């Protein structure tokens, strides 16, 4: 999996690891937009450039085996990767792909990821990832979830 430096188009390999207890000291709201300490008892992952320490994005997940579903609770990129001046592209897409990989590995053909973005953001996720909408919940299932993995889960 890779991200792209917005200014140069240069591609960097990334890794996604579980967030460790010590990381939470660095996950301040001013840099990561939400209070990530609230997620300490959840399944939280960080995205870093391979071999580097700086956290570029975070995702908190809830596995719901009874519904063959992985729900995205919280997702963010770091402050310097927000907006038109962002340093790297594809951070959020890679984190969503990570959730999709967990869902497919666990639930196979029944796999589903879901999230509930604010109304004004929903159309973006529908357009970009081919998500389905049910009420206010967006979800991605087979076959679109497989397409997402194939699009982003490539060896650099």
């Amino acid at each position, binding site marked *: 999996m890779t991200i792209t430096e917005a200014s140069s188009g240069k591609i960097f390999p990334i890794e996604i690891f579980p967030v460790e207890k010590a990381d939470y000291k660095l996950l301040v709201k001013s840099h990561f937009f939400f209070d990530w300490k609230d997620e300490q008892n959840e399944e939280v992952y960080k995205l870093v450039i391979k071999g580097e320490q700086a956290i570029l994005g975070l995702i908190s997940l809830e596995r*719901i085996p009874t519904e063959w579903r992985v729900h995205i*609770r919280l997702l963010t990129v770091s402050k310097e990767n927000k907006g038109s001046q962002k340093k790297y592209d594809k951070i959020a897409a890679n984190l969503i792909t990570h959730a999709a990989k967990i869902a497919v590995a666990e639930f196979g053909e029944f796999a589903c990821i879901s999230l509930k973005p604010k109304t004004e953001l929903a159309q973006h996720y529908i357009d970009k990832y081919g998500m389905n909408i*049910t009420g206010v919940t967006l979800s991605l299932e087979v076959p679109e979830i497989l397409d997402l*993995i*194939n699009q982003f889960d490539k060896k650099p």
Partner: protein
Amino acid sequence: MTHDFEFGVESRYKNKREREADAISLMQARLERMKNLPKEQIVRAKLLQLKLKMENYLIEQNNTEDNHFTNFLKMYIDTIYSHRSKFAEDMNITPVFLSQVINNHRDPKEEFLLKLMIHSEKVFKNVGDFQKKTWYQVYFQEKIADTMFNQEKWRPGIEKQVKLSEPF
């Protein structure tokens, strides 16, 4: 100024009621969509699941006595074929040989692993990015894990045969 839609999503359920209502409507909609899911997409999903499980096994270095290689092999064959004998035919091996490998009564020969690599290349061509070395890695990682896990069984006999005659 362009709005950045992807800087963050707050998607946590506020309470149990909201979550349950969401679960019911979402499941109904999904079951409806699943009815129309073509068989080839189901096979594609199962193969991608297998690939991800194999990759996870390689990352996690799971040192247990489980037969990962043959479990993955069974999943692979049963996803693609209605009869295992047909897979044996396609691989130019006897059904007896395949059965012995699958039931852990014999080790697969290197030729079998090479054929499996070629077979997987053909199968995964339209499924996803499958690394050629994956079956080999799974097989040998399991061999290493078995060796380490079963030291009590092999160590006493082997240790008697090994000495260090040079001063060290």
